[in-house]
């Protein structure tokens, strides 16, 4: 087995031979170096941080209704880096929601949902739905007053769907409490769906390339350059989130008292409260799915192959309108006095 005297000296073990960084050396359009093209990567960074902190928290959290609140107190007060991990989990989840909404707005503005990129858009819309569902399930887990009321809203919305909503109610099975099942969704099914959609999304971006408008060059920089810049922005985002988690830690409400509705949900869900205030809790099960259906329909409604100034203006107006409605509803819900929606 010994080396022959005249055989060439084997090459030293090099990481670059194993990681094949040359595979990142493909051409991408120069337009991709603009800041809005990093929003998807920043969403992914936030999701990665939420995943890492979530894995740690899952080792300390008790999903039984009786133990959930106490285990969160333990995480905050006694577990090593528990308070930081929980706060970082919270802030990274918020960052993911915000970044994905900006990303969606930019992709819509650029018209990048058009053929042949419909599937990329749908995978992205699916991930947005997944992120919202992950955020919602996460808010119920501390089983404090806010979490309990979120769960009660979920129950009421599910009940309004009749047989379709049974899965999200206590009636689905007597063998496991709803909170434990919600937790299972939060840490298993939803992340798996998110991962599958993310894989499809990234594969399609690689396969179809980054969308350019007519007249824009399709080559001019490399993905490696873009990748290094993604790393820089990701590191700075992570630094900001750690600092935020330390300076503004996530709070915890008192143990839930049933029959009372005294809290408002976190910022990403306030717009839904405004709809509830105006239309009642039954609207939850209609309006929220409608928003996602509208997103899914976008590539089917706008099927033109070429872009026009008029079409671009229309999209700018729609984006401005969407953000205005979202912010107006959020502010209205924030300022509105507490209302009882559940009839608890």
């Amino acid at each position, binding site marked *: 087995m010994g080396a022959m005297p005249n055989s060439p000296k084997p090459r030293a073990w090099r990481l670059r031979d194993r990681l094949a960084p040359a595979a990142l050396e493909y051409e991408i359009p120069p337009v991709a170096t603009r800041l809005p093209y990093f929003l998807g990567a920043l969403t992914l960074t936030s999701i990665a941080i939420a995943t890492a902190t979530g894995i740690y928290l899952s080792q300390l959290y008790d999903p039984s209704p*009786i*133990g959930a609140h106490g285990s969160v107190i333990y995480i905050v007060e006694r577990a090593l880096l*528990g*308070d930081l991990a929980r706060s970082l989990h919270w802030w990274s989840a918020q960052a993911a929601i915000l970044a994905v909404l900006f990303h969606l707005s930019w992709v819509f503005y650029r018209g990048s949902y058009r053929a042949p990129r419909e599937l990329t858009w749908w995978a992205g819309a699916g991930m947005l739905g997944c992120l919202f569902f992950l955020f919602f399930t996460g808010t119920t887990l501390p089983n404090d007053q806010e979490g309990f009321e979120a769960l009660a809203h979920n129950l009421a919305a599910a009940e309004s769907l009749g047989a379709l909503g049974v899965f999200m109610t206590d009636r689905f099975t007597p063998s496991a409490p709803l909170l434990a099942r919600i937790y299972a969704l939060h840490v298993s099914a939803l992340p798996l769906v998110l991962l599958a959609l993310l894989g499809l999304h990234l594969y399609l971006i690689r396969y179809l390339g980054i969308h350019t408008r007519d007249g824009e060059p399709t080559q001019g920089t490399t993905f490696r350059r873009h990748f290094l810049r993604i790393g820089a922005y990701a590191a700075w985002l992570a630094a900001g989130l750690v600092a935020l988690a*330390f300076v503004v830690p996530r709070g*915890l409400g008192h143990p839930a008292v049933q029959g*009372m509705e005294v809290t408002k949900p976190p910022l990403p869900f306030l717009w839904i409260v405004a709809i509830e205030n105006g239309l009642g809790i039954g609207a939850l099960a209609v309006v929220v799915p409608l928003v996602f259906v509208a997103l899914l329909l976008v590539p089917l409604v706008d099927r033109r192959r070429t872009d026009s100034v008029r079409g671009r203006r229309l999209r700018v107006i729609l984006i401005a309108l969407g953000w205005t409605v979202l912010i107006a509803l959020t502010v209205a819900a924030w300022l509105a006095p507490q209302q009882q929606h559940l009839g608890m």
Partner: protein
Amino acid sequence: MLGTVKRIVVVLGIAALAGVFGARAAGGHGAVIRLGAQAVSAGDSLAVTGEGLGVRAKIMLALEGAAGRKVLGTFQGDAHGRFETVVVIPAETPAGAYRIVAEGGDERATEDLLVSAAVGGERAQGSPAGVPEAPEATAEEMRLDRRRSTAESGIAWGLVGTLVIVGAWLARRPTRPS
């Protein structure tokens, strides 16, 4: 070839040693508590014994349930990390499923407990006999004694600094082809 075998033996040896020490370290985290009864009435006393909560550690016992957390008392563990005490489940405790939590040193142990309504005479302040006063729901946040040791603060801010530097390094990295 011999060199490769040696390297593998060294790596496996280190891994085995790490495993042995890891297992021994993990073995030290076996805090348990035992209750004199699994079900009591509010107002009853309850014997609690425990071990593995730290040598001569200050041990806190609490009752946790859907209605909140009530500290039942603090005790001193002995030289072997054991303790034995009797606590009283507050008479105003609403009936339901609870858990007794013991915390000492860096350890925590829990045991489930069923509490039934207070029997005869004991009553919550301001409420009729046997009917516990309903707690008020509040949107306020709890006052938490957040764990913020100097080491943890150092880790957090060290991480922030490292990430900022790594970001700057990546941003300034030459992007010539490899």
